[in-house]
Every structure is written in C-alpha cells, then in structure tokens.
C-alpha cells in the first residue's frame, strides 16, 4: 500500500528534572518548574514520529513532525530540544493564565492548539508525564479531538492509513488497529530514542517555532489555569526523605543476618 507523507504532532512536556528534589510551593501547592527539561518519556513519542517520518523520506518528502508544548516561557527549551533531535517545527502555547492547569484544562488547551494546525494524521504523546504522571491527558485529548485512542503502545506501525499497535497489559497483550487520523501514546518499550547530534543542533536554529497565547488558540482564560481546573489540591505534605539504615558487608553469614532482620520486623 502507498505510504504517503504524514503530518504528525508530538506532545512534549517541560518537566522538572527527576534527578533533583522536586517541590510544591505556594498556597495552591503548585510544582516549582525552575530546573526543568523535556520529559524523558516524551522522547519515545518523538522517536516514534521520527521513525515514521524517516521511513517516508523525512521532511524532504513532505513529512511534518511538529513538537507541541504547553507551559511557561522556559518550556520553549523542550521544543528546542525536540527540533535538535529532529522535529521539523515547533509550537509553544504560553500564557500566564495557564499556570496551575490540571489535566482537563491542559487537554482542553492542547486540543485547541492542535486544531490550529489543520488536518493532522497522527498525534503522538508519551505514556505519562514525569511530573503529573496521570496518563490522562492522551485519553482526554483523543476524546476532545474525536480521534481513535491507541494508548500505551509498546510497538507502533503505520501502513497506508492503518495504525497497528501492541498494548501490553497485566493479564493480556492486545493488538490494536485504527485508521488515520488517530492519537497514539507510546511506552518506553516502543523504541530507543536518538540523541541530538551536531548537525541536528545546527539545523534546529533554522527551524520555525510559533508561540501562541490563549487568545490566539481561541481558549478563554477562565477555562484554564487555577480558575478553569476542575480539581484542586487542598493540602500537601513533604514526606521525610528516606535515610540509609544499617549496611553490613557479607562475611559469610549475611543471609542469616537478613533472616534475623526479617524476624525482628515480624515479617517471618
């Protein structure tokens, strides 16, 4: 079957680096987003898009991979990194009124942003963000955009207009088929993300990033942010950091000491 060029949108979230301590701040318990990066789970979404584009001749053959982020001014860094890795264009939705948006407000604004891009063949997202970790934005986006929902794909193929994915659950592994246009979320089993190389970093400088405000995507300010969110965090408590306990080096009886420990804790 004929594999024509694809117009793909990849969702890339700008999230606090999980390697560092992360903090909730202020009376609304919002996440401090200062030390942030492109969510590592979204690298798999970008890779999935690039694999499909490459197989069809890439940008030269008319394939588009637009990296879309919604977040503060600094979130442009997530788009920039995506362009360096290989996305062809960037779209950044940025507006002060977005601060504090929950998943439903986020998916509302992301759906409006995607509609500004005209007909799209595929929307590809990560399986979960490394901050919110809800995995609900992809399902909500599919619902809002009226697209088939092909989520938690651990493998993805597109032949002609047919999308085939595998979804590995606890009890069953499912094969899913849908027809383009569709929304797909991919897991970290789907592929091996590539790194930006020198050529990619140079090329990224010439790629176009569009920044749009809420007004420009036609979303009222009170439909998003703290005002438009339908959930609220009323209390937050930091868990005391775990500390190291007793560390022993095996000198022949560590297995027995382990059993002593379990017995003392009444676990055997």
């Amino acid at each position: 079957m004929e594999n024509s060029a694809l117009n793909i949108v990849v969702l890339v979230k700008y999230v606090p680096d999980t390697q560092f301590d992360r903090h909730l701040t202020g009376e609304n318990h919002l996440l401090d987003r200062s030390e942030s990066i492109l969510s590592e789970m979204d690298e798999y979404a970008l890779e999935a898009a690039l694999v499909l584009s490459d197989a069809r001749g890439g940008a030269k053959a008319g394939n588009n991979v637009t990296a879309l982020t919604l977040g503060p001014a600094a979130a442009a860094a997530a788009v920039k990194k995506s362009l360096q890795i290989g996305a062809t264009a960037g779209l950044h939705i940025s507006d002060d009124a977005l601060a504090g948006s929950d998943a439903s407000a986020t998916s509302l604004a992301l759906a409006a942003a995607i509609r500004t891009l005209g007909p799209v063949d595929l929307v590809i997202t990560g399986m979960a963000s490394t901050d919110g970790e809800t995995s609900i934005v992809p399902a909500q986006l599919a619902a809002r955009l009226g697209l088939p929902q092909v989520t938690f794909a651990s493998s993805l193929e597109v032949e002609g207009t047919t999308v085939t994915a595998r979804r590995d659950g606890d009890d069953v592994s499912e094969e899913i088929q849908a027809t383009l246009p569709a929304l797909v979320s991919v897991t970290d089993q789907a592929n091996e993300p590539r790194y930006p190389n020198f050529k990619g970093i140079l090329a990224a400088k010439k790629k176009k990033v569009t920044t749009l405000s809420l007004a420009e995507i036609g979303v009222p300010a009170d439909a998003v942010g703290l005002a438009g969110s339908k959930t609220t965090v009323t209390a937050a408590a930091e868990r005391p950091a775990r500390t190291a306990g007793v560390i022993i080096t095996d000198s022949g009886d560590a297995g027995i000491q382990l059993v002593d420990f379990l017995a003392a804790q009444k676990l055997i």
Partner: protein
Amino acid sequence: MSAIVVFIDQVDAPGKLHAIHHQLLTLARGAGEPVAVVAGAVSAELAAELGAYGVTRVLASEQAELGEFLVAPKADLVAQAAAAVSASAVLVDNGAQGKEIAARVGVALDAGVITDAVALTYDGGALVAHKSVLAGSYTVQARATSAVAVISVKSHSVEASLAEQAGAPAVEVITVAFAPASLGARVTKRTPRAASGRPELEDARIVVAGGRGVDGDFGPVEELADVLGAAVGASRAAADAGWISHAAQVGQTGKKVSPQLYISVGISGAIQQKAGMQTSKLIVAVNKDSDSPIFEIADFGIVGDLFKVLPQAVEEIKRRRA
C-alpha cells in the same frame, strides 16, 4: 443520598468481583448510594455479590462494542450511566484502563478527574482523595470542584466490608450511544499472559525484585519470594533483557508498589527504579557494590553476592520453620 457509580468490568473476566471492586463498593457505600455500572453480563451470583456490598441499583450493558474496541466504549457506558443516575462521583480502579476511563468520563461530564488515590475521606460532603505525588516525595489531598468527581483508586485504599444488610439489586439494561470515534481503535487480537501463581505485585505484602545483577537467573529471587509468600518484581534492565515479563517491572514506567517490605536484589537503584518503590515501608537491598545508590534508601543493606546471600537466607528460613 446521591448516587456513587462504581465501574465493574466483566468483559474480560466475567463471573466474579475482584478485591478492588469490593473495596470500591465499600468506599461508595460510605459516600452515598452505591450504583454498579457493569460492562458485560450480570449473572445471578454477581447480582447477589453486589447486593451483599450494599448495591441497590445495577446498570449493565452487554453491547459487543464494549469488548471489541479499546477503552472508549466503556467510558461512554460509564459517562452515560452516571448521567442517568445523576451520580455525584464515579469510582474506577487505577489500572491503565481504569485511569483512561476516568479521563474520558471527565471530559464527557465536564468533571474533575483525580488518579492514583490511596484513600478517600469526606469533608463537608465532598470526597477528598489522598495521593502520593512526585515519586512519593509528597502526599497531597485533592478534590474535584465540579458537580461530579471522577476518581481512580489504588488497591488497598480501604478494608473491604459487607453491607449490614444485603440487598437484591435491580438490574437495569442500559443501551449506550457510542460516539463514532469511540469505535475507532479495534482490538484485533488478545494474547493472555500465563499466570505466575504468585501474589500480584500491587497487592503483595512483600516484594522481592531482581535486577541486572541476577545475570539471567531469577531462581534465587523466586525461591526467596516463595518462602516469603512474596511477589516477584524486576528492574527495567532485567525485563529488557528478557529474563522476566515486563509486567513485573517496578518503577517510573512499571508498577508503583508500597509493600510492607521490598527486597531489592542486584538492582543499582536508578531514580526511575526508586520512583516505583521508595514508598515501601521497609527496604532491604542486596548488592555487591557498596557504592550503589540503593544503599542510600535501604533500611537494611547487605554488600554481598546475591547468589550466596539469597540461598543462605532461604535455607535459614526453612530451618527455622522446620
């Protein structure tokens, strides 16, 4: 009293309720009038079991689409049933499918969605969900500000209990109007996984997890798990190597567990692994490298060779029990 909808999936495994359903029904009974929304058939036994947990109304659909397509038709069912009974809350299990049903019901009902609840309480009539966020570094309380609250709840959020008086719920058949796009992602093949016979990772009181250090041999990990009645977990490196199913993976992209005891064996303790296990009550680590980051969070750490330490512990447990 307002209706609290509990979603019960009978499409894949018909005939009985799971422990999580007992827990959700117990929570719903505490918050209002529990209404079971069932995808699939409601046998007499199932209706009786629902009645025993205090369910007064059951809305059920056996439409074939519920099993033929991924997630979306089930979400249509739950949203339309919740609207029909004017529910104030919808409770679903916190599996991948449950969370996605919650997500879509939230869109359909213009309702706030909260996932990963580990407990539910009430405050002035509102349901408050308690959850752990940022890989266990915070616990937060969240609530929906919308007319309906949609919450996905983890296992063991409550001790399940039977209603004081068992009821005989009426089963109403509901005909769902599926949105066209809901019938867009067809399930073309189902391959069931072989059951291990061990406890489920998320339900287990003890988890023994192996990493790259087991070097292809999960035997010592499984033997320790079996004498402790524990579930077997794994790092991504071990699952990626094909030594064990990815369903056993613990971490950021695997299961999030908080057992009484987590025994980490031959796992270095990368941030993505910790994200799935650092809320465990007690952590024991066995690793031959004393610089492994896992030792920074272990309550009891053994610097040693797992192939010596584990079999010795297994023998010792058997000896003490004999």
